[in-house]
């Protein structure tokens, strides 16, 4: 009854302005790391819940109200977001 993390890309991108699917999340519960895209996402409820693919602990939760996004990342020990290399010039 879960989908993979790609299914939650839109709601996180709207709130954070980044593509969360390529981020590497380390689970605060079991310590396993993995790309957000590989997490187990439960989106048939009042909000979206991403769970660790290894231990099913909650990694992240997000609720979209009519006016705000509410985000809980307490289940993530770290969130590693790929960025363009510092000093890189995309025009060259």
């Amino acid at each position, binding site marked *: 009854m879960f989908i993979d993390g790609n299914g939650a890309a839109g709601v996180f991108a709207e709130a954070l302005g980044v593509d969360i699917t390529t981020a590497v999340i380390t689970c605060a519960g079991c310590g396993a790391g993995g790309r957000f895209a590989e997490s187990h996402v439960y989106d*048939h409820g*009042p*909000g979206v819940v991403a*769970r660790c693919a290894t231990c099913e602990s*909650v990694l992240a939760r997000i609720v979209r109200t009519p006016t705000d996004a509410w985000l809980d990342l307490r289940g993530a020990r770290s969130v590693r977001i790929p960025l363009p290399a510092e000093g890189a010039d995309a025009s060259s």
Partner: protein
Amino acid sequence: MSIVSRGFHGRREPAAADLPPGQYLTRDFPVLQAGPTPRVDLDTWQFTISNEAGAKYTWSWRELLALPSEKTTTDIHCVTRWSKLGTTWQGVSLDTLFADVETAADHALVHSYGGYTTNLPLEDLLDGKAWIAYRFEGEDLTPDHGGPARLLVPHLYFWKSAKWVTRIDLLNDDEPGFWEQLGYHNYGDPWREQRYTDD
């Protein structure tokens, strides 16, 4: 003046007045959950009420079934906007379970197998307003709908009716639950459309 008859309806459709504001009627029973469905062994199932002093009152599955049960027919309203009318449940009234519980607490935090929580005032669990339900429409409650047993508090949005219930902690100070921490209303009265924190 219209000359078109609306016809004769053998079965009354629910009027809008039967639905809280912002809700639509469904005849299905949607399954909403925030995690995998716990598979709870009835031999180890427990339901515990823990009071503010830490005293515990615990029932096994067999002890729960031995208590007087009630049948109730009620409407249920999900915060995701569906409502289902005339659902029939069987279970044990919280009044029965609280009969010997000593407490002066005002708040309850409900815990489920799987880690889900929800909070509500203790008074909303009493006086015939809440049950530990284990049968739905005459059948054992299925795991996807919260079986073997779920809390049933139908006068509040259905996220308060915690599936797979296992414990109620009585607290002197209110403590928000799983969705109440994250933008949903602390009380959740569907007739006042208390969906979100600021409603």
